[in-house]
């Protein structure tokens, strides 16, 4: 039996990182679009903001993919934990999935005018 237990919450965050990023981006663009349009912001500004948020989200997911191992350590997942490779794979694929969703969400801002 190993001495160091992995953190439950940390492991969950690690596995879900890509999707969490999508969730944050999605909430942000939805709220920003709804609020700013409701109170009369210029549509081009809203579109720009949506795209900016999307850009940041894409970068964050990319960063996660690049620095996956250090992130895992940061989140309390020991390197020698059983089935570590499985967790890494899941986290990576999840990030790819999240990335697709983030890009699609941003894509709509290219194609549709805001506040209409």
């Amino acid at each position, binding site marked *: 039996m190993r001495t160091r237990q992995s953190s439950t919450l940390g492991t969950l965050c690690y596995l879900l990182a890509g999707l969490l990023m999508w969730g944050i981006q999605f909430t942000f663009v939805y709220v920003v679009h709804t609020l700013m349009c409701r109170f009369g912001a210029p549509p081009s500004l809203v579109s720009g903001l949506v795209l900016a948020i999307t850009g940041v989200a894409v970068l964050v997911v990319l960063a996660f993919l690049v620095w996956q191992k250090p992130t895992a350590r940061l989140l309390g997942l020991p390197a020698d934990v059983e089935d570590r490779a499985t967790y890494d794979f899941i986290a990576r694929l999840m990030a790819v999935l999240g990335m697709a969703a983030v890009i699609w969400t941003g*894509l*709509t801002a290219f*194609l*549709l005018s805001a506040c*209409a």
Partner: protein
Amino acid sequence: MKRVLERCSGAALLLVLSACTGEQSALVSRGREASEIGSLFWIATAVSAAVTILVIIAIMFALWGPPTWKDLLSRERAVLLGGIVLPVLVLTYLLVQGSTLLQAGVARTQRSGEPSITIVGKRWWWEVIYHLPNGETVASANELRLPVGRPISVRLETADVIHSFWAPQLGGKLDMIPGRSNVITLEATEPGTSRGQCAEYCGGAHALMAFYVVALPPKDYRAWLSREAADARTPQTEQERLGERLFMTSGCGACHTVRGTEARGVIAPDLTHVGSRRSLAAATLPNDEEAFARWIAENQHIKPENLMPEFDVFTPQQLEALSAYLSSLK
């Protein structure tokens, strides 16, 4: 492109093609939006059919295919290719198509300006109000007339619960929501009549809340609108006059308006030109004298829960006179 696609998929799916008939069919377009959505629909159908066939073939190979194929299929790489790469490509294509079309609709609405028709959903009929250039309004019911080739902006509101306005041959549906007013742009591309119906469950007689759309050449439309704006025709025959008297003394005017008479009710359909409409009771009955008589005396059987009480208080002769009068309101 659209034609070709239509023909191809039509040939492939005879059964589907049979959906292209019917006065309320979404696949028969008499409007710009409907025809655009129609082409997107065929694209999506073709893509879906292709994917379905692909999956079926894959399952068949997985079950009975040659070992080499089975071996290829059974790798995790196949799962990632088939389950991620393929869907991402297909879905990106569809998302772009869908968004582009949605944007076209948005642009159309932004161009078409102030609403010139207001439709108010009520339990369970449609009040249709035409706004004339001089600022006056003309109320009608359960029938929408449009000039061909002009994008018309229509404001949608409700007097009670949520309804949804849907004229499938013209375009998609849009809800009527208390406290809000939604605007839809309709553009008829060819003259003719089609049917529409309430698409959001609105309780009781939801099933019996339909209407007709009549698209007219612009000249005919203008002529019709000026006729519609005029007061009601005065009764000509003795029977019609008796009918009018019955109408006025029996309380019909409490709810209905017949412009040019003392009937000025505001809670039920305007009957000024009821005789010229295609149907009665929100496309529930044909428009003839017999239908009027049935409606007056037994409307709760024809359209249960509708808000008009049954006036089963007339003798047959009186009913005939009333119906004759109402039918004469062309």
